[in-house]
């Protein structure tokens, strides 16, 4: 009897220990699967025709020299923006792009990329604007997939033409300068989140290190609170848990009770925060993609500049 009990106890112990030791084998239970998928989840579905993987990386040659097998390449600089009129990709252009990638209206689109998924998040924002419901991000992005030594392919994928139909742009998740100005003046209700670094927010610098100064004023939009995008992720680049995220933003007054406006320098980093607040926490969020390069340069528009830095003055 004692022996059998010992065996049972031992088996139980192994079960418990393995349950703790191998949490990475399961999908993350602490995040909504409809928004974020783990590398394990994706690796198991690479052959699923209902799942389409899209890479949005900004460094040239990154996708080409090896991507997640079956993934298609969207180029942020030309595919996802209209560089001539400074706008997002037109519905016609985006519909054509998505169809060529083999995306249907009911396809599960999983985006990933370099640079902490910033540009992949921009892609998720565009998909959402044009009415595609099932858009998710790969947790930890390209870096995590590589770190785990998962396979990459250099063969171009070819998928049968999809039937994705772009719906009229969802205006409520995109903000323009007058929308944000109305919040600043108190004419509309909302809370503004500046996701840049504290040095940019406080006006000590005009742009992050290594980037051109594209705005001639330093500082931030009046009333905006500062939560750098990186505070939403853990050290390995994966998202924090829903509870941690809820607390992080609640601590600066962003709790979903009011509409949220996010911005950064050109709208790529704030796409990441837009994704966290809207897709993971389910808040009502609009991204102001004109961001600081528009606001900081706009004539007659108020700013707050705690550091008092003036462009061109010694």
């Amino acid at each position: 009897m004692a022996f059998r009990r010992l065996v049972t106890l031992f088996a139980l112990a192994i079960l418990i220990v393995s349950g703790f030791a191998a949490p990475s084998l399961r999908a993350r239970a602490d995040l909504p699967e409809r928004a974020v998928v783990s590398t394990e989840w994706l690796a198991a579905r690479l052959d699923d025709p209902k799942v389409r993987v899209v890479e949005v990386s900004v460094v040239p040659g990154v996708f080409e020299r090896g991507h997640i097998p079956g993934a298609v390449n969207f180029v942020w600089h030309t595919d996802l923006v209209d560089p001539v009129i400074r706008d997002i990709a037109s519905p016609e252009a985006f519909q054509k792009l998505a169809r060529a990638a083999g995306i249907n209206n009911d396809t599960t689109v999983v985006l990933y990329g370099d640079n902490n998924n910033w540009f992949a998040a921009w892609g998720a924002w565009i998909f959402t604007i044009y009415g595609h419901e099932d858009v998710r991000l790969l947790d930890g992005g390209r870096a995590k997939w590589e770190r785990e030594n998962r396979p990459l392919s250099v063969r171009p994928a070819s998928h049968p033409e999809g039937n994705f139909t772009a719906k009229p742009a969802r205006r409520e998740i995109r903000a323009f300068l007058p929308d944000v100005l109305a919040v600043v003046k108190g004419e509309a209700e909302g809370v503004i989140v500046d996701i840049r670094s504290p040095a940019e927010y406080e006006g000590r610098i005009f742009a992050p290190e290594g980037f051109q100064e594209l705005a001639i004023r330093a500082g931030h939009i009046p009333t905006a609170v500062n939560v750098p995008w990186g505070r939403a992720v853990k050290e390995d680049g994966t998202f924090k848990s829903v509870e941690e995220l809820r607390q992080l933003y609640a601590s600066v007054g962003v709790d979903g009770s009011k509409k949220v406006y996010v911005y950064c320098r050109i709208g790529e980093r704030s796409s990441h925060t837009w994704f966290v607040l809207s897709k993971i926490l389910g808040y009502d969020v609009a991204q102001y993609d004109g961001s600081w390069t528009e606001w900081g340069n706009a004539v007659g528009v108020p700013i707050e500049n705690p550091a008092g830095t003036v462009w061109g003055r010694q």
Partner: protein
Amino acid sequence: MTETTLGGGAQAASTSLNNPKVAAAVRIGLAWLIFGALLALAFSLHETPGRGAAASLSLLIGVALGVIFQRGRFCFFCILRDFIEHRNSSGMFAILSALAVGGIGYVIVFGAFMPNPSGQGLPPDAHIGPVSWVLVAGGGAFGLGMALSGACISGHLYRLGEGYTRAPFALFGSLLGFGVGFLTWHTLYVETISTAPIAWLPKTLGYGGSLAVHLAALSALACLLLRYLPELPAQAGGKITWQKLYQTVFVARWNPLVTGALVGLVGTFAYFRVAPLGVTSQLGSLTRTALNGAGLLADRLPGLDTFAGCATRVVHTVTNNGLLIGSLVAGSLAIALFTNRFQLSRLTLRGALTALLGGALMGWGAMVSLGCTVGTLLSGISAFALSGWVFGGAVFAGVWLGIKLRLPE
């Protein structure tokens, strides 16, 4: 063969390098040591955070190029000089072979990188540059500089490993030339380069058509050059023995067609895994960083950073390109030691000064042309860029003029 036999009875006691057996042992020991160190460095780079496979591959590609260039004497100037001065075209076949194999390799890689060439944009970081009179002037200056200094930049790098004492002067000169290039860049860019066409054959002909035209053009050149081939020595028949194999690999100069094909293969591997071959990016970056540090050059050079080519940056570390050229020199040194081809050349003041001046001409030419005989000519023509052919023609004209002006003497 006897010089490679190690050990040796009574004489082994003597440690004098005048003893040929001791000298050979030291030579070969050093060669193994260098190869071993390079291999160890490649392994450790792979494990270094922030470096990884691209860095260790760059290093290994450099070693391969050093060995191939040295064993096949793949020196653009020597090849052109043999043809222009001595009417001997055998080296030219190495260049043609490199371009033919490179073109085939690039088509295969392009097919994966950018399945449809007629769409917008160009394949990532391929050396396809703007074509204007600046490119012609750059190529011409580069050719003259080759004639004056005795080799092109890649030639100086591998000949440095053979003990060519003019090479350091030429390479230093090229740093100065790069500086002049950076200071002239803004004017040249605004006036000419910014509106110059960037012609890429596959845009109109597709990959198959481009490769057909590419191979036809190279074949036509080969036909024209055939009559300048010297008579080949009678080849002995018989079995392949270890001695014969050793003779072929480590003693005789490699066959130009084989040398070229290997260069084309390495070029394809480099483009596939890291970046197109080039040897001037780190050199130019050194100058740019120094000028920037001295407050003589702006942080940004409008236009320059948007072109594909041997990109220069303000950097404070050894780039992958730096690893490549460093290991090219080391690889050439190791194989030269191993095959007893290392010899310090005699240096004259005139030789040093002409190398410095020639190097400066090459530096300026390579800067405004976004690369040299490797980066713009080899990697450009392999990628079906018109800029590669135009630069190649201008380099040929420059070398021809230099030789007619008796610059090499």
